[in-house]
């Protein structure tokens, strides 16, 4: 039985004219179901999981994560810990980044710099995607006549994959339909060798994806993402740069030419030029010399030059979208294809995606997208 007056012992409702009490539905932390947060999973050189750092525990250890995706795949990354993580992170430790606890990592890379002994906390680890390992291996081989697809397969399967963490998957090396007559690589970094082949294939790109698998594919020219000012991003900077335009390219290759190549000087390794008349008419004649020392065939060299010319005959248009909000879609944006951006006045731009910088911090999960040719 209640004591006299107990009913009115807490008088807030009488004094303040309001009732207090517990709400029928209690506080719910950080939107269950939406799973905002992240997880980093670490693997040793044998691909055995050695640890993880995430926001699904009470004592989170990571204050800031940055990583970037580019047409070549996963680029640079870094993360900052308040202390050592409790397991050994070494050079070449693999890091998979799972924003929103996505089952599929948005990024995979390996650690390249570690905090040095004696350094004060916090500790920063940095690294790069596995694409970087293409620079570690030299190619010394002569090919031809062969389809570019077969040359790329041979380089990746037999030269790159055995000595790096890059995985060869034949299905991810696409047919180009172009046969190279002769090409001679002598101590050329694999990245440079494959870049030459991609240029000759015209409209191809290559890289290492978030499964660590090498890919060689036709550039996607579809619009894969659309963003509206005020809805999906905060601001956009759009710049046009006409200073990089070149519309006549003289081509030097890896053999000395004699007579029979037009006005080219005898004994020179210049085999001619490619030009774009429309660009010359619009912007005036702008010349440059390009060199492909590995190429031994003039037709191959011209294909390569045409691909370069198609990019630099027009002014660079670059755009940068800052602070893209990812919470709405929680979907990874890859640097594949084009993005359409619509500015506040309705102007639309369709530009290839060059790079996406992701940031995970107390300020949430946001992206910055660089677009342009």
């Amino acid at each position, binding site marked *: 039985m209640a004591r006299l007056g107990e009913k009115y012992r807490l008088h807030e409702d009488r004094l303040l004219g309001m009732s207090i009490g*517990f709400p029928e539905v*209690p*506080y*719910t*932390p*950080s939107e*269950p*179901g*939406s*799973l*905002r*947060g992240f*997880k980093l999973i670490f693997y040793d050189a044998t691909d*055995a*999981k*050695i*640890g*993880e*750092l*995430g*926001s*699904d*525990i*009470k*004592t989170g250890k990571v204050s800031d994560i940055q990583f970037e995706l580019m047409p070549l795949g996963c680029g640079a990354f870094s993360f900052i810990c308040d202390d050592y993580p*409790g*397991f050994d992170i070494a050079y070449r430790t693999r890091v998979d980044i799972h924003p929103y*606890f996505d089952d599929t990592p948005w990024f995979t890379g390996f650690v390249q710099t570690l905090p040095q002994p004696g350094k004060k906390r916090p500790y920063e680890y940095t690294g790069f995607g596995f694409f970087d390992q293409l620079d570690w291996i030299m190619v010394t081989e002569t090919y031809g006549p062969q389809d570019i697809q077969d040359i790329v397969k041979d380089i990746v399967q037999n030269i790159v994959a055995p000595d790096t963490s890059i995985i060869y998957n034949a299905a991810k090396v696409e047919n180009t339909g172009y046969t190279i007559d002769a090409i001679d690589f002598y101590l050329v970094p694999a990245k440079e060798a494959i870049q030459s082949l991609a240029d000759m294939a015209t409209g191809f790109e290559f890289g290492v994806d978030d499964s660590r698998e090498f890919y060689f594919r036709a550039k996607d020219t579809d619009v894969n993402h659309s963003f509206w*000012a*005020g*809805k999906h991003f*905060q*601001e956009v900077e759009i710049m046009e740069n006409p200073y990089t335009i070149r519309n006549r390219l003289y081509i030097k290759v890896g053999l000395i030419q004699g007579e029979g190549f037009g006005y080219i000087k005898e004994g020179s390794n210049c085999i001619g030029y490619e030009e774009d008349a429309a660009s010359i008419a619009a912007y005036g004649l702008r010349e440059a010399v390009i060199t492909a020392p590995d190429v031994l065939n003039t037709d191959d060299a011209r294909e390569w030059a045409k691909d370069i010319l198609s990019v630099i005959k027009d002014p660079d248009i670059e755009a940068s979208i800052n*602070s893209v*909000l990812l*919470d709405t879609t929680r979907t990874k944006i890859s640097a594949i294809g084009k993005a359409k951006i619509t500015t*506040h006045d309705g102007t639309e731009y369709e530009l290839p995606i060059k790079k996406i910088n992701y940031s995970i911090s*107390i*300020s*949430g999960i*946001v992206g910055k997208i660089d677009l342009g040719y």
Partner: protein
Amino acid sequence: MSIAKLKLIDSIGQEYTLPKTFELRSDPTGRRTSLMEMAFTHGAKDVSDSMFMSKFIEVSGKIWAANDAEYNVKWDALAEHLIKDNIQIETRGRRINLKKVVGITHDYPLPLAYPYGEVTISFEAADPFWYTALAVQKKIIIASSPNLFEWDIGGQMETWPLITIANTNDNFDFTFINKTDANRTLRIIDPNAAAATTIYIDCAAGTVLRGTTNIISKFSGLFLRLLGGRMNEFSYTGANCTLTMDYYNAWI
């Protein structure tokens, strides 16, 4: 009614009761915010992680003594506790974890009949929540699978348990879900989790052990948390075991 005094508890459980003149003040705290103003849009969007911020706890009071020597003994005893890291302070049956002391003011007014001093101490509470002094333990014997059960979790905030799986049978693959927390799921596939082994999943620290062996490589999914102030429904799928959770109820 007796008024409970404030207590300091160090990391190994030693307690020190503050003089009865001491009182406690909790500095303001709140959830993080990071407003992003969008072009040509009214207002702004909050893009932050919305977690609660750390805060400061201030304790102040007077120390009285019969003479200077006693005063110094009392102050030295208090100071001995203040200089430690990772202490707790307890009031009204709840404790808060304090990283370290970040400010001490000690005034020596002119003695009246007895020497006395005025002390104000500020602590950094990196973890902003208050907890039960003792861990709460819940236990269930799993004799069939899948097994659905629910436990009433006290407090108000989310809290991270230590989950102990004492395997009765071989338990090479099990899944544990907090259905109340949007089906947050963990899974352990461990071919060495034989009968009579014990698995410890520390959801606060993010560690997974079988006995004393680190088996984080066998873990997938998310570390579970408990939602305070409500029934939490769980689902366990795996071999028979005794499942125990130890946790602290948490309040803001």
